[in-house]
Every structure is written in C-alpha cells, then in structure tokens.
C-alpha cells in the first residue's frame, strides 16, 4: 500500500495562490504523469508531495500515512531532478549511498542495494567516477540509481529528460518505462512533453493554472477530452479549432466550407460553438475552393499542410505520405462527422 492521496491541497505564496484545492488519488504501483503548460503548478505539486514545498492547506497522504507536515526525508519518497542534482564532490557510488549512510543503514545492506541498482541501470563501469566525468544520460541514470537505492514508496520525477538531447531522451524514456515494469513502485512524473506523458502514463493529470482540468488514461484523454484545453493539449499537432453557428440542427462552419453535422446534442439555434477537428482525422480534397495552402511540411512518412480559410482561420491537416497540393492552391477537406468535437464557446466545455 503506497499510493498517494491529496485532499483539497492548496499552495499559496503570500497572496498569490498557485495550487487551488487539488483532490487526487494515485493508486499503488501506478505511473501518474502531471502535464500542463509552463507555470501550471505541476512541478510545485510534485514538490509538495516531496515536502520541498510546504502545503498551505489540505492534507497529503503517502501509503495511508499523513505526511503533510513531515520532513522530505521522512516521507518515503525519492526524487529525480531535471538538473540531476548529483553531489559534484562525490563519486557515483557515494552519490547513490549518501541517503542510506545519512540514515545509518549497515554497510552490508548498502552494498547490496548499490549492487542491485547498478545492475538495473548498467552503471558498473562508472561507480568510482565523479559526476563531472559522466555524460548527461549517465548522470541522469545515476540520479535514478540514487532514487532506487533508497527503496522509496514513491518515485518522483521532475522533468527528468528535459536536459537530454532528443536521441537520449527516447532511450531514457524507454528505460524509465522498463524500470516501472521491473520495480512496480508508484511513480509521479512531471513533464510538458506530451509524448512522454502518452507513452509512460497509466494515468495523466492535465493541470492548468493550479487546477486539474482532467484525469484519465492517455487514450481516454485523447479520444474523449472534457474541454477545449485538454483537447488542444493532448495530441500533436494540436487539434484545430474553428468557430461555427448552430443552424437547422447542424452547424454552419465557414472555415470548413458549409454546414457539418456532428453527432452530438446541439444547443439552441443560433448559438455560437467551437468545432474541433484533429489534423490526423481530416484529408485534403484537391477539388475544393474554401481553403488556401500556406505551407506544406514533408516529414517523410507523414506530411502536414497548413491551410487558411477566407476568414483567416487556420487549420493543420496531417496526411500519410506526401501532399500533392502546392503553395497557394485552393483546396477543401474531407472528414468523418464522428471525428468532430463540439465545445461551448464561453465555458469551453465539451458538448457531448
């Protein structure tokens, strides 16, 4: 039993409130990812779990134990930092054992745990080096090793891959996924990279401005977002949003070249709504006239077309292979009506 439970957790710096009463339950062994734009409070929330930030109001439970007022070291958590935060004057071995030595564990036990972590992370050759003599990827491995050695109830990752180059990032992502499978401990992972979020998470928590927008499994958030923010945040390239007006039981969307009939309960006639359409759910129809091709990007396997409507609304469409339309061509798009999402214009909540 080592889940995490937050009850009405609030964080205030003076008069500025950055976390607005968050309720969240993370099950034992779950991989939970906090995502959100910069400044949404995801790192702050993680640091509140770690005890590096005080919780202003509410209660924090780890493994059924209330830890709201406990010191970081007493919470049974280990943290992996974006900047690695290795002790520069200590060797890899000393870095990994420091916590256990501070807590007075016997030498034999420490050696055993280091051997275990070293094996998992393949760090055998680096044990006697100092962090300065390691590459970024190796440093982050050591930092993860330091967390493993402590045998915590909950692992906390604060954007651990942000300082690595693209190739290493993919490699480490796979490694962290494997680690979670091997150890099976509860993990909380903060990132702004939605690929990391989608691939690693059992559960994603989307945060905005200190509030939870939606909690769910990665594909559930992708298929069934609760509001425009989540719809726009999950998925890459982001969902297209265009405005429309409800008319005769359908929606008139100028940017899409006429009326569309989303399969939802539409609001009253004349109401303005926002229509969402994912780039990968639309296709270019070269015979149309409603949209102008601004730019095309060919990535090899897939291509993107950036289109503009006569009213100036922008759309991105993703196609397999290459796009035959050239710059300045006027085209149209085709799509399946069940791929349309409808959002209320003011509250931005989804109309289902």
């Amino acid at each position: 039993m080592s889940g995490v439970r937050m009850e009405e957790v609030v964080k205030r710096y003076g008069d500025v409130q950055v976390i607005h009463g968050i309720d969240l339950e993370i099950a034992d062994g779950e991989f939970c990812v906090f995502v959100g734009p910069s400044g949404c409070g995801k790192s702050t929330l993680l640091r509140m779990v770690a005890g590096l930030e005080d919780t202003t109001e509410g209660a924090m439970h780890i493994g059924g134990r209330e830890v709201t007022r406990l010191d970081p070291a007493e919470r049974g958590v280990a943290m992996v930092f974006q900047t690695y935060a290795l002790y520069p004057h200590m060797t890899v071995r000393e870095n990994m054992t420091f916590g256990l030595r501070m807590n007075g564990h016997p030498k034999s036990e420490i050696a055993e745990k280091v051997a275990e972590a070293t094996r998992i992370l393949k760090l055998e050759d680096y044990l006697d080096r100092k962090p300065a003599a390691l590459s970024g990827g190796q440093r982050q491995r050591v930092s993860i090793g330091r967390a493993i050695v402590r045998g915590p109830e909950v692992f906390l990752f604060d954007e651990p891959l942000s300082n690595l180059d693209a190739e290493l990032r993919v490699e480490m992502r796979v490694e962290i996924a494997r680690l979670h499978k091997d150890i099976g401990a509860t993990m909380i992972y903060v990132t702004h990279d939605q690929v990391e979020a989608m691939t690693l998470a059992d559960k994603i928590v989307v945060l905005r401005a200190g509030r939870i927008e939606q909690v769910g499994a990665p594909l559930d958030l992708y298929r069934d977002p609760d509001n425009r923010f989540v719809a726009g945040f999950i998925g890459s390239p982001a969902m297209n949003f265009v405005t429309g007006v409800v008319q005769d039981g359908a929606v008139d969307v100028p940017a899409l070249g006429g009326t569309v009939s989303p399969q939802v309960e539409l609001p009253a006639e004349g109401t303005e709504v926002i229509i969402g359409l994912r780039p990968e759910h639309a296709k270019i129809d070269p015979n149309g006239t409603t949209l102008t091709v601004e730019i095309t990007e060919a990535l090899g396997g897939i291509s993107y077309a950036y289109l503009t409507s006569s009213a100036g609304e922008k759309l991105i469409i993703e196609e397999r292979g290459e796009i035959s339309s050239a710059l300045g061509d006027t085209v149209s798009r085709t799509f399946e009506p069940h791929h349309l999402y409808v959002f209320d214009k003011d509250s931005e909540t989804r109309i289902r």
Partner: protein
Amino acid sequence: MRDRSRSRMSQTQAAAILLAPFLITYTLFLIYPFFRGVWISLHDWNLLAVAFNPDATEFVGFRNYERVMWGRNIEWGLFAAPFWQITGLIGLALSVILRRVDRLSRFNAIALGLASLLLVFLPGFHPGEGGRWYDRRFWPTVGNTLVFVGLAVPGVTISALVLAAAMNRETRAMGALRTLFFLSQVLSVTVVTLIWQIMFSPRQGLIANITETFGGTPINWLTDQQFAMAAIVIATIWWSLGIAMILFLAGLQDISQDIYEAAALDNARGVRAFWYVTLPNLKRTITLVVILQIILHFQVFGQSHLMTQGGPNDTTQVLVRYIYQTGFRDSELGRASAMAVFLFVIMGTFSVIQFIVGREKS
C-alpha cells in the same frame, strides 16, 4: 601582401604602446626597488650617513644576513625545541603513512612533508655553550609573526565562513547585514585600531563594562603579556572579515539549490548539509582564502604599531615593524633590507603555493 605586413607591424607597435605605461610603472616602482633592496641588503648602509655622503656604503656580502639570522656557536640538536620538532616528526610520519594508504593526494603529501621537515629542522638551531644570537630579537619577532598569522588566519576563515553561510539568503535584512559586515573592511588601520583601543580599554571599554556587569575584573588587554597578541588578533579578524566573507558568499552562490534539495531528501539538512555538501564544495574557495590571508597577515604592521607599540615586553613585535624600526629608527638600512628579503621569501613561497593550487583542477 604589403597591406597585411603593414597592419601586422602596426599591431605590434600598438601592443608596445598600450603595454608601455604598465611596464614602465611596474619596472620603476616594483622591479627596480626590489633589486635595489636586495642590493642594499648586501651592503653596510647607514641611512643617515648615506644621506650626507652617498659613497658611505660598503659591500659586505651576506654579512647582514648573518648578523640578523645567525649567531656565535650556533648548534643544531634534535631536541632543542622538543615540542615543535616532535610535532614535525609526527607530521612527517603522517604524510608518509597517509600517502601510502592513499588518503592524501600527492601534492598535499609533499606539502605536509615539506612543512614538517622545516618544523624539525629550523627550531633545532640554538646557541651552544658560550654562544649567542647576534640579533636576539629577530627570531622571537619571526615567532610572534607566525603566532599572529596562525591565530588570525583560522580566525578570519572560520568566522567569515560561518557568517557567509548564515547570510546566504536573498532577503533585504541579509543584504543590509552583509553590507554592515563588509563595511569594517573599508576602514583604514588607524580607525580600526582606534576603535579597538577604546573597546579594549580597561576603564571605559565595552569589553571591560561587560566583564564588570558579570562581576569579573576587567582585563588590561593591551598591556598584559598574555592578552596583547589576542587583542591584536581580534581587531584584525574584525577588520579583514569582509573580503573573505564576500569570497565565501560567491563560492556559496555557485552551489546549486537542487543539491540541497536532494540532500534534504537524503536526510541531510542544516548542520549536516553544511558539513557534507557545503564544505566539500567550498574547498577551493577555502584554500584561496587561507593562502590570501596568510600572505596578507605576514605583512601585519599597523595593528601592532598603533595598539601596543610591539609591547608589552616585545610580545607583539612583528616582522614588518622590526624591519621598519631597524631601517628608519636605527638607520640600519642594510640589515633591514636583509630582513625584508627574508619576508619576501616566505610570502613568495605562499604565492607560489597559491598559484599551483589555483591551477590544480578538481
């Protein structure tokens, strides 16, 4: 082609012109006086006599050095100064043993070994039967200077480190306190000594008042043989705290906050974090501060000259003050220069050490 060579010529010329003011000043005010000083130290050179007759000097070779540092019937014994020599022997043994078990880097082992060797060797000299030092005051003066450096340097380093660690916070109060502690640094030695003469005064001084409040008898700091040196050291620590504190603050800023957070999760906060995280990461700064302070405090003059006039009973007589008196009160410029060269060798040694340590990476 022609253009190129012309521009290269003018570059060299420009370099020469730009460097000239520095080189001329440096030569005129540092290099020339230094060699002139060495030259004078090889002569019998009476300041007053030379003032009236420029030819009244006599080349005497190293006799001034002998007159200052040597004596009649000087002998060397292993137990002439048992305390220092045994300490030196222990240091020598330690340097060998610690190097064997690899607890000491080669550089540190050599440094400790050399220092210990000097400690065994130098105090071993003493006048034999019927012998005496030609200058009875020189070596005790060197000893006083060493005691002063030995007390002031750790005093400054430790108190500056503690203050820096306590004030390494970005609040307005801490900023004000930092300025306040640094302020003493900008005072001139006359002001500092005046302040502390009043502080130490047995009648109206602050320290005497506090002692009396708690029912003690005020100490006559500046005229008591036991306390005079301590008084000078205290004033010096207060005076030269600022620079060391600023250097430590700069060093502390270099330690990333993340590391302290990692340490907090590893159950090392407060004093333990200071011991296991802060101190090891400040090692280079500490070395720098210690060596700079050693070089600075070997030149102590004002505090001793103004607060105690070298007294009582020569217990606070320091090297620079003795050089000053020999040269300008006794007019023995040759002998004074010989002592100055001796001081130069000591400070030069520490400068070289500082240079080597500064270059050594990790």
